């Protein structure tokens, strides 16, 4: 059980007592329920005027408790009252425990969902990059669901079955030992039979499920290749091909359901066989008492009735128990994946210094290689210096390490050699959240949340004024476009809302970062998605902004880079050349070549 402890601890945090107390409630409510059924026995015995002396102590106690033997046998109507009392007790406790249970289990689900999400949110970037988003989602949803059901619904069912069997057997045992033993005769066999047969059913189910998955994949493939199918006029072939998948699925489905039909119908023999056995044996014991009223094993008609009623009550839960227990492996697999995720390390973003950041940046012989390629330097021996408020441009071919430089600065990755300082402090000493709040990195692929434009803009800082928002959107040249949308700033974006073009998204993302007034601004090729004119306007507006930020622009446009205080040209992770525009233009190299081409093209 140690395997499941972590996820279980999270679910039960603060709920431990409530979780376990439910089992107590369950037991109490089942006792009332079974006593309600027991009333029938007392009633029949009272009608048949069985003698008080032949009764066991439970029944005697029952009669004593409700006014005594004589009163009850002469006033059968009292049983109606007793029945209603038990109905109220059993119904009341049942309703109470259901609600109690709902409160606990829904809260348990929430706790695990939250914990899993916090974990995902805090995974180091290098780790998230290596995982499939779909897998993470599966663990946070389906696995969570399977495990929560196991810990709540299935556990409750398991104990429901166990409790009801125990209570039934205790009551029967007090009444008559022989009938108790007979009541249990077929149960162990049925349990084992069900346990193993249902495993086979599951195996066949999985094969069917796989086949259905393949069929679905085929449909998806067909739909995404519609153009190809039609262009090659292979419609008939597609239908025949699909027929193979249908037939395979059909075959496996029938194979599976044949087994499950066999399981239910054959275990019904045990169930109805057991009920019949109890009935017949109960009848025999009744007969014994009729023949000899003092026979030790003889029972009353009431006992016979309660024996087969109880049998009918316990056989079904026992079969369910076998079904649930045979499926425990699934919950284990789910919780293993959950724990694997929970055990991965957190990125520490909340410890470290929180110095005032103005925007002086210095790279000192920085080298870095990605964890999955430790021998290959993505960044090698990079040194440069920027003063607060200056603008630098970084240029280079694809794969030369431009973006990596930005990621190192805001510590999505940590460099292995050298040092990066901000305002003279090594960034590795600075709290990551603090650092990132002060470095606004505008990514190449803009990502907006499915919220309104306004909510997207204020996601980094909820306290900004309307004015601040408008200032930022005007700089990023998106204010007018937003006003043209049907709901202006309250227009929802994303799947259920308006679809923005790539350039519009990028401009919203730029405004979102500008609102933060960060001392450092990084455009990671994020101006490329907008046209040259807008690019120019954005840069002009940035110059006239009140806040002076250190600006790092990663670009492939000379026009964008030209005015920078420092231009760095990267090649294969190394600095090829560095300087101002005028210096670089006159020096043989990548910059001057591209300058010539681009000016010709203007």
């Amino acid at each position, binding site marked *: 059980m140690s395997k499941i402890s972590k996820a279980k601890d999270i679910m039960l945090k603060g709920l431990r007592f409530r979780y376990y107390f439910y089992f107590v409630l369950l037991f109490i409510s089942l006792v009332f329920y079974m006593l309600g059924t027991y009333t029938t026995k007392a*009633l*029949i015995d009272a*009608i*048949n005027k069985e003698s008080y002396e032949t009764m066991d102590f439970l029944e005697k106690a029952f009669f004593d408790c409700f006014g005594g033997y004589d009163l009850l046998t002469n006033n059968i*109507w009292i049983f109606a009252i007793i*029945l*209603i009392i*038990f109905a109220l007790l*059993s119904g009341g406790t*049942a*309703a109470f425990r*259901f*609600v109690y249970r*709902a409160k606990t289990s829904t809260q348990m689900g929430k706790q695990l*969902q*939250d914990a899993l999400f*916090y974990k*995902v*949110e805090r995974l180091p970037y290098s780790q998230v990059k290596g995982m499939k988003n*779909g897998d*993470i989602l599966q663990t946070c*949803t389906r696995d969570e669901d399977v495990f929560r059901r196991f810990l709540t619904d299935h556990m409750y069912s398991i104990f429901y079955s166990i409790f009801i069997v125990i209570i039934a057997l205790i009551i029967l045992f007090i009444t008559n030992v022989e009938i108790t033993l007979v009541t249990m005769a077929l149960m162990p066999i049925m349990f084992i039979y069900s346990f193993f047969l249902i495993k086979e059913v599951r195996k066949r189910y999985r094969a069917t499920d796989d086949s259905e998955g393949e069929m679905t994949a085929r*449909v*998806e493939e*067909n*739909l*995404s290749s519609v*153009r*190809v199918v*039609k*262009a090659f*006029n292979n419609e008939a*072939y597609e239908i025949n091909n699909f027929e193979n998948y249908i037939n395979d699925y059909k075959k496996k489905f*029938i194979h599976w*359901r044949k087994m*499950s*039909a066999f399981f239910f*119908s054959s275990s019904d023999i045990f169930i*109805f066989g057991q009920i019949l056995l109890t009935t*017949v044996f109960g*009848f*025999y014991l009744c*007969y014994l008492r*009729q023949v*000899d009223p003092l026979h030790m094993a003889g029972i009353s*008609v009431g006992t016979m*009735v309660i024996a087969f009623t109880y049998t009918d009550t316990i056989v079904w839960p026992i079969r369910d128990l076998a079904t649930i227990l045979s499926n425990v492996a699934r919950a284990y697999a789910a919780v293993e994946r959950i724990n694997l995720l929970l055990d991965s390390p957190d990125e520490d973003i909340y410890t470290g210094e929180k110095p005032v950041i103005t925007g002086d940046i210095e790279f000192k012989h920085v080298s870095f290689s990605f964890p999955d390629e430790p021998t290959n330097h993505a960044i090698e021996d990079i040194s440069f210096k920027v003063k607060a408020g200056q603008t630098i441009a970084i240029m280079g*071919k*694809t794969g030369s390490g431009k973006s990596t430089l930005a990621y190192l600065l*805001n510590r999505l990755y940590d460099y292995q050699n050298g040092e990066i300082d901000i305002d003279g402090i090594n960034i590795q000493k600075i709290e990551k959240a*603090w650092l*990132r709040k002060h470095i*606004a990195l505008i990514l190449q692929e803009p990502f907006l949340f499915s919220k309104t434009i306004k909510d997207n803009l204020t*996601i*980094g800082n909820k306290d900004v004024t309307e004015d601040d928002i408008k200032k930022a959107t005007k700089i990023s040249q998106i204010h007018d476009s937003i006003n043209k949308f049907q709901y202006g700033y309250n227009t929802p974006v994303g*799947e259920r809302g308006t679809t923005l073009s790539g350039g519009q998204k990028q401009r919203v993302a730029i405004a*979102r970062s500008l609102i933060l007034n960060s001392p450092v601004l990084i455009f990671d090729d994020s101006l490329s998605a907008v046209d040259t004119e807008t690019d120019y306007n954005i840069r002009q507006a940035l110059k006239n902004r009140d806040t002076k930020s250190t600006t790092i622009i990663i670009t*492939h446009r000379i026009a964008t880079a030209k005015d920078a205080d420092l231009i760095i040209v990267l090649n294969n992770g190394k600095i090829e050349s560095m300087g101002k525009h005028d210096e670089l233009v006159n020096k043989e190299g990548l910059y001057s070549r*591209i300058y010539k*081409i681009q000016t010709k093209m203007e």
Partner: protein
Amino acid sequence: MASAYVEESVVTDKLNFSVWIKTVKYIKKLWPIVIVLLLCMFFQAFYDSSFIPVANAALIDAFELNGPLIGGNISIWEIMLDFNILGIRFLLSFKDYLILSIVLVVLRSFAMFGLFFSMNYIEMEIMTDLRRDAFKRIQELSFSYFDKTPSGWLIARLNNDAASIGEVLSYSVLRIFQIAFSLIFTLVTMFTQSWQLSLIILATTPLIFVVVMVFEKLILKLSREARSAYSYFVGWLAESINGNKTIKTMAIEETIREECEEITDNVRKKRLKTQRASGFFWPCVDFLSYITTAIIILVVPLFNENTSIVIDAAMLVLFINFVSHIYNPIRQFAEIFADLMGTQASVEKLFMLIDTKPTLVDTPSVIKKYGDIFNNKTENFEELYGDIKFDHVSFSYNPEVEVIHDLNIHIEKGTSLAIVGETGSGKSTTVNLLCRFYEPTKGKILIDGIDYKERSVGWLRSNIGFVQQTPFIFKGTIADNIRYGKLNATKEEIIKVCKELDIHNFIMSLKDGYDTYLKDGGNELSQGQKQLISFARAIVRNPKILILDEATSSIDTETEHDIQDAINKMLVGRTSLIIAHRLSTIVDASRILVMKDGVVVEDGNHKELMEKKGYYHKLYTNQFKELNIGEQIDQYEDQIVNKNVNI
């Protein structure tokens, strides 16, 4: 991405029979198995609702019937039991009862197997029939349908809807009979025992009926809300996982975490509401059945005043059991009702798909001569030479907006024609019209001088080799993927084509050569390699017309040269239409058509058009600026310097 498609659930409150009537066709043809099912249900209902209660009553009554047994004057086997089944009254010895019971338990098991199995069989047949019909219809539908319909919607119809309709028709609709049988058996058995008591039980049923219906409706509504809260959470979660990088770089973990708590708390609340409602439901129903039982206890003595016994134990037990036999069907009926409600929208949507009429079909006389798309009469196909003429062609996807205006082009046999223009200029539409994915709204397209509508879609497409922007790789071997262009192609033909395109060596370098198995989307290969395979697929059918629809847009630089070489080889001897976003692919074309807003604005070759400094020149330079630095240098060297084009 199809899997990311999230469907909004439709709330239904009324049963609409005209919707369900469409499903009758699918059940009707399964009538023999339905009869088996009904017989099994009939037997099971008889055993559970008549035999067991009556037999138990007979056992309880036995000692009254057989008089005092003190001293054992009658052996247990000879004790007579008084059976009153469905109005037939007879005596049975205990021995015979035992034998009969064992036989019936075994028979019941057989009946249950028959019942389960035929239900499952019916479910499966309906499900696969629906899927087959839907799939067939999807193959027939024309392009305009797919423009409007997301593939996620179609997948949801084929998968979820077909499955849930199959399930509801077998488990819910047919179970109505099961419930009806057990109700009938219960009622008949009850009334033949004591009609007065039966009436009393029946008198309480309207109350339970109301309670059940009210609760079921409430629970149905609440659980829908809970489900939609949860699927909102899942959608939100997926988005937040995708936006992980943004969350990190903006350091907004706290904000997002608060959002998460809010959303999971909403899920918790909605689930709690649902579970609370069902938490009260079951105790309520149980309590009502106890009340009914209590009434029976109070009332039974009144009917037995004349007899020596104050109250008949057997009758009492019998009627206590009947209470649950009456209550359970009501509950089950409510469940079925809920199932039907939940599935009605599925039925509507799936049949909307199955009943859709394809808009692009050949005329009956054309079909008669050339066959339909599923059965092409290839023996009647005339040879296609490859002379194409657009004759005053106009086209609009929807009536208000015309996207192609009065297009007149003559493409002579063997020409390689490139079409360029911005997104929305009509270049793709032009090609789609040629492939007859759509038909002109005005004017006609002549192939070898004859309107292409006078010959079948199959005839035209069997002569077209089509390569699209993102190469599509089917799950299967490389040979399978190439063979898709010509289903009866031999291995030799395939190898010959690959050698022609110079990709034979590359294929042979793979682990299993032509039998290399490609999984979903062929991700083992680079984009360029996949495109080369789709070239082979197009060429293996030896088409007279070749269409490259943005075939080089997403090619990595490594394979670019191989692709270019292969394209040049493919063009030889064919009429070809090349659409390219990347202008570098079309500089070599013999003729370039520049389109803007649905009309041709310039026509000529690369050098001429560049010197003209018109629209083409502008397109070219703009596009150039979008390239990254490395590409700019390469392209500049290749096109401007080497080919001496004036800019």
